[in-house]
């Protein structure tokens, strides 16, 4: 090998492929990465601290802004923890609506991931196709709660809005539309030799390493572990649905891609079943006291967000505000493995590996 000069390269925070404002200080030797130091915090808004001064309903819009690609699951993480602590009963109709929007949101989030990931490795068109399909989900949400990104939809004890007439049918039609559409994506991307060569065998995460770094979501499942909280610790109504947890074999980026694509299909299956079982009538808000006073104590609940285990840890002193609120944001935990994965890789794999982790900076910085 030729001796070359080490160079310090600053990637971000305004770099198009860091998906927000992540900064990476990369030391490279030629094209090889010697050291990586992620610098985070550019999007820190102090959500957890702010929450200590807000009552539980007021916190919900703040959770929207954490993982802004799947705000529904964020909403749910909070209300689920509060409901569990207060021991509230949720009306069935509300629970079904929650599952439908959460799964649709998971699909939307994975579609964004797929599009931007392909954009990162240089293919332009899948991005636009993915956004075309995601747009339909956003329209559905728009009709349901009036917002396209930050929904503020769930409430402790139920959901804020009932499905407008015809909404369920529209959601059903969307599921029927997207399922065959997945074949188009596979035709365009999955078999593409260039794509396969850029992702197969790259960024391999072994199961042991993944567990050591507390990875969750597709980042963990890709290494062969079938850890999915929807199956392992079913919350909401997930024990009523038939679905599989896609796992990878090799732990590389290609498997990650396949995993996430399969997760879209599984989510579609769940939405389909939820729509079939959807109760015709019913209320959408359970019996909830006017002022939400959570009994004194502590609780941790985890749910499966598109990015992994989204935990919510509440410490309550019996007031209407949390004494301390802590979110276990999957992106933050998943990002930690990045330096380990990148050292020794070529700089041209940087973007591919970073993109594969699927981070949302709003969630990393919180």
């Amino acid at each position, binding site marked *: 090998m030729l001796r070359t000069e080490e*160079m310090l390269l600053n990637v971000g925070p305004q770099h*198009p492929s860091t998906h927000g404002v992540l900064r990476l200080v990369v030391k490279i030797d030629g094209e090889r990465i010697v050291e990586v130091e992620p610098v985070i915090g550019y999007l820190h808004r102090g959500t957890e601290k702010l929450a200590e001064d807000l009552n539980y309903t007021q916190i919900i819009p703040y959770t929207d802004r954490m993982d802004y690609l799947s705000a529904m699951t964020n909403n749910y993480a909070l209300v689920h923890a509060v409901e569990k602590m207060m021991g509230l009963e949720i009306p069935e109709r509300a629970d079904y609506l929650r599952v439908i929007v959460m799964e649709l949101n998971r699909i939307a989030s994975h579609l964004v991931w797929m599009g931007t990931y*392909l*954009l990162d490795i*240089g293919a332009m068109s899948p991005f636009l196709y993915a956004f075309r399909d995601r747009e339909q989900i956003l329209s559905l949400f728009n009709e349901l709660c009036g917002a396209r990104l930050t929904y503020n939809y769930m409430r402790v004890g139920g959901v804020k809005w009932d499905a407008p007439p015809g909404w369920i049918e529209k959601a059903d039609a969307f599921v029927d539309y997207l399922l065959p559409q997945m074949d188009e994506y596979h035709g365009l991307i999955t078999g593409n030799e260039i*794509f396969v060569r850029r992702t197969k065998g790259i960024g391999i995460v072994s199961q042991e390493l993944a567990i050591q770094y507390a990875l969750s979501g597709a980042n963990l499942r890709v290494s062969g572990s079938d850890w999915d909280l929807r199956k392992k610790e079913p919350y909401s109504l997930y024990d009523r649905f038939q679905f599989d947890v896609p796992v990878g074999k090799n732990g590389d980026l290609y498997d990650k891609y396949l995993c996430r694509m399969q997760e879209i299909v599984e989510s579609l299956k769940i939405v389909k079943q939820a729509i079939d079982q959807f109760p015709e009538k019913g209320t959408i808000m359970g019996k909830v006291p006017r002022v939400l006073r959570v009994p004194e104590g502590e609780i941790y609940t985890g749910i499966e967000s598109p990015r992994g285990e989204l935990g919510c840890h509440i410490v309550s002193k019996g007031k209407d505000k949390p004494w301390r609120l802590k979110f276990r944001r999957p992106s933050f935990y998943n990002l930690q493995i990045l330096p380990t994965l990148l050292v020794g890789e*070529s700089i041209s794999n*940087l973007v591919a590996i970073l993109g594969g982790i699927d981070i949302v900076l709003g969630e990393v910085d919180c």
Partner: protein
Amino acid sequence: MNPVLVMGPILLLFVVLGFVTMAILFERKVIGWIQMRPGPNRVGPWGILQTVADVLKLLIKEDIIPSKADKPLFKLAPAIAFIPAFAVLAVIPFTESLQFSQFAVGILYYLAVSSITIIGILMGGWASNNKYALLGAMRSAAQMISYEIPLVMSVVGIILSVGSLNLVEIVEAQKQVWFIFPQFLGFAVFFIASLSELNRTPFDLPEAESELVAGYHVEYTGFRFAFFMLSEYVYVFAMASLTTVLFLGGWNAPFGLTMIPGIVWFVLKFLLIVFSLFWIRATMPRVRVDQLMEFAWKVLLPVALFNILLTAVLQEVPYLDFLYRL
């Protein structure tokens, strides 16, 4: 001095500039259609003046030269990148009558002169005094040099068949059969290598916006930047013309449809090549830099060499030799 000889190149420059304007619009439209969006449609009817507006914007932009840049080289680089792009057009015969120079070593002239552009790119990247620009320039240069070799090797089959380096003679040799058929291997190698020479998807690493932000021209603005872009599109023009001349029979009409003038056939074939460039851009992801090099040296070059061998052998095979000995 012959007035045609003086006015011709000026006219060609305007034709090329017109082509570049339309090609950029066409590219954005085609990719737009493929991606199910309308493409540019604000400036002028059907967005026809979009590129004009873009160029105007570039021209009235502030001309920024980074203070730590090597100023003379920074200013010189776009010109050095552009001049060869236009100079290579001199040897390309568009029809029997519409050609500028009957250069005896036409193909070699094209390949040689086009390699000077790499110096311009390296100069620009180095003079910018920016790490991204430097990396981009080095990638670009390494890529263009590596792919120049299979590019040259892939046309050797044609040269063997025709026995001349003159582009006009090459076109005339394709009166019966276009070289894309007997020289299909050569065509495949040539087309892939030319994609790479043109820095187009899937080989657009020098401008990998997701990795290098923009590549060698990050620090350039205004019309210096426009010059880099211009030279890239002039190369599209030149390379599509060269592909037409070498493999698609130039101005020769297919199926004996000679009542349609040769220039129309040339333009049609030329547009087909240009369209496929855009089409590929909308479909393919980008290859990685090490795979790019591997592909040039381990796949394209052996295939090109095999093509030479094959051509030489087939020249001696009865019934087939008419395809290979013209």
